[in-house]
């Protein structure tokens, strides 16, 4: 099968008129076991180019584990991961990152000893190339590269409105701002796919609104594909184009927010009452 073409051919248009492309990433029959625990059982779904894809499900359903598989940190016990039409072989996480897959973490994983600016600059590490000797000498090349990337990073800083804390060590930041810096770091990598694990946990409505705005803008302006885990149904339903629902490691629903909302199995397992 010519995957490249397959990827380009199909696609769909969203309710608000955005054009979604072909399949960018496909998870095929993924199973993940830890010793005796099966965290994920035979799940398949795809992520299309340019869409906002949400994964929801009760606690411990295996959502984060799924993201970990995508970013190469967990190796699935069974199943395949396809990216851009090719089957992804066994890869180290940093190689996955170099493919253009960036992410944020559920339990914030910022580099505590560095300033906000440096943290965001680490997002660009995959793009920086000067050798160690040139850096030691701070020769033209190194300095030029540094400045060029710094400029890009400053744009992101502006975009996320964190100018004021640029030089603050991240350890001191309150939870919500940390989440924002994490997003900035992921964005700095100019990823093809952005994986967000509960980006809005621990925020109030106002801050969530800001965060939503950022996510939508990233998706809009850079065409970044987004895969997001979130427990705030308001956010998920409003933002996402399609939703995967997991429960106990199994997929119990997949479709547009409206379809999912109406799915009785999903209601039973997760939503409780039909959501507004």
């Amino acid at each position, binding site marked *: 099968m010519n995957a490249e073409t397959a990827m380009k051919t199909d696609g769909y248009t969203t309710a608000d008129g955005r054009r979604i492309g072909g399949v960018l990433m496909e998870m095929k029959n993924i199973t993940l076991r830890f010793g005796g625990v099966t965290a994920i059982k035979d799940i398949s779904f795809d992520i299309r180019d340019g869409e906002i894809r949400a994964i929801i499900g009760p606690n411990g359903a295996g959502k984060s584990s799924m993201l970990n598989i995508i*970013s*190469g*940190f967990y190796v699935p016990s069974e199943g395949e991961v396809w990216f851009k039409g090719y089957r992804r072989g066994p890869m*180290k*996480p*940093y190689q*996955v*990152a*170099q493919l253009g897959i*960036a*992410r944020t*973490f559920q339990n914030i*994983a*910022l*580099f*505590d*000893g*560095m300033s906000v600016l*440096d943290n965001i*600059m*680490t*997002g660009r*590490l*995959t793009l*920086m190339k*000067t050798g*160690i000797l040139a*850096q*030691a*000498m*701070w020769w033209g090349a*190194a*300095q030029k*590269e*540094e*400045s060029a990337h*710094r*400029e890009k990073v400053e744009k992101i800083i502006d975009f996320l409105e964190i100018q004021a804390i640029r030089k603050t060590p991240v350890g001191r930041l309150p939870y919500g701002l940390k989440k924002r810096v994490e997003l900035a*770091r*992921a964005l700095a*990598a100019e990823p093809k796919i952005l994986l967000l694990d509960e980006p809005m946990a621990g925020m109030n409505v106002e801050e969530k609104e800001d965060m939503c705005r950022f996510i939508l803008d990233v998706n809009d302006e850079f065409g970044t594909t987004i895969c997001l885990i979130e427990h705030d149904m308001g956010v998920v339903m409003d933002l996402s184009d399609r939703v995967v629902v997991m429960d106990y490691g199994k997929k119990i629903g997949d479709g547009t927010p409206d379809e999912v909302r109406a799915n009785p199995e999903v209601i039973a397992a997760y939503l409780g009452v039909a959501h507004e």
Partner: protein
Amino acid sequence: MFYREAGDFKTTYPEDAQTFPIRFDRVRYYAVLAVAFGVIPFWINDYWANAVFVPFLIYAIAAIGLNILTGYCGQVSLGTGGFMAVGAYACYKLMTGFPEVSILIHVLLAGGITACVGVLFGLPSLRIKGFYLAVATLAAQFFLVWLFNKVPWFYNYSASGQINAPERTVLGHFVTGPNTSAAAKYLFCLVILFALAWMARNLTRGTIGRRWMAIRDMDIAAEIIGVNPLTAKLSAFAVSSFFIGVAGALFFAVYLGAAEVGEVFGINKSFLVLFMVIIGGLGSIFGSFAGAAFLVLLPVLLKNVLVEGMGWPTDLAAHIELMIVGGLIVVFLIAEPHGLAQLWRVAKEKLRLWPFPH
């Protein structure tokens, strides 16, 4: 308002990324340089050179080296003594093998050889972490010391197993051997330290430094955002060992003039340098200097006070010195776990606000 940064605006990124972005700091830095290069060499004598300055300069190099590995890359190493030994023996073999080549080249090559050895012993760090790694680096320490003690080729088959630095000159002045002047020793080490510190600063503020720090702060996350842990850790081991190797070479060739590996490069050396790094401040070049200065000066000071000042018997003084050094280390860690460098930063922050408390 003793310390101000207001009015210091940066218009370009390079300007913002410079080492001392604040003018006040920059001026002070040039002043220190001027004294170090322009005043001290004319005034220094044997005692000051040997008791204070030369060991300080050499330990500062080693401390920067270890700080790169431990402070920046988060890999605790207790093998510093062993790596210094590699530098020393490499330098010795080079000096005796190629007497016509400049000692400066030998010292740098010794660093290079140490870097290779460092990478070799750094390999396990990919699997082993934390204190397990720290203890594992002791394998390097003990093995290297044993090796240099055991294989006569390393000490040119001398009967005692000791190595002696032959006399060498730079620009017509002796820098090794018993006829070296205090000023020559001092300057030789100072120049090397200056160059290396500058390089260390460049490395740590750039891409590679960020890779190291990412690994240090959270290695898994670092790998997921695209840092290759293999190259990051090994490059830290290489650079760090290079520095430590150079320090070892200077320690043997310039400072001691002769060395017996188990004595000079034993595990105590490893701890000493680690102390410098921690007391000075992990992840800070300035801290390496401060830590080295502190731990070189403290014993000299205590000895002078306790033996000469108070007239105590030397053994009592030595024991009490041990207690004081140990006690001070604890006190320092309690007062500021992030070391002298942090103490300095907080002091600056306070000064900036002065006279207001917050």
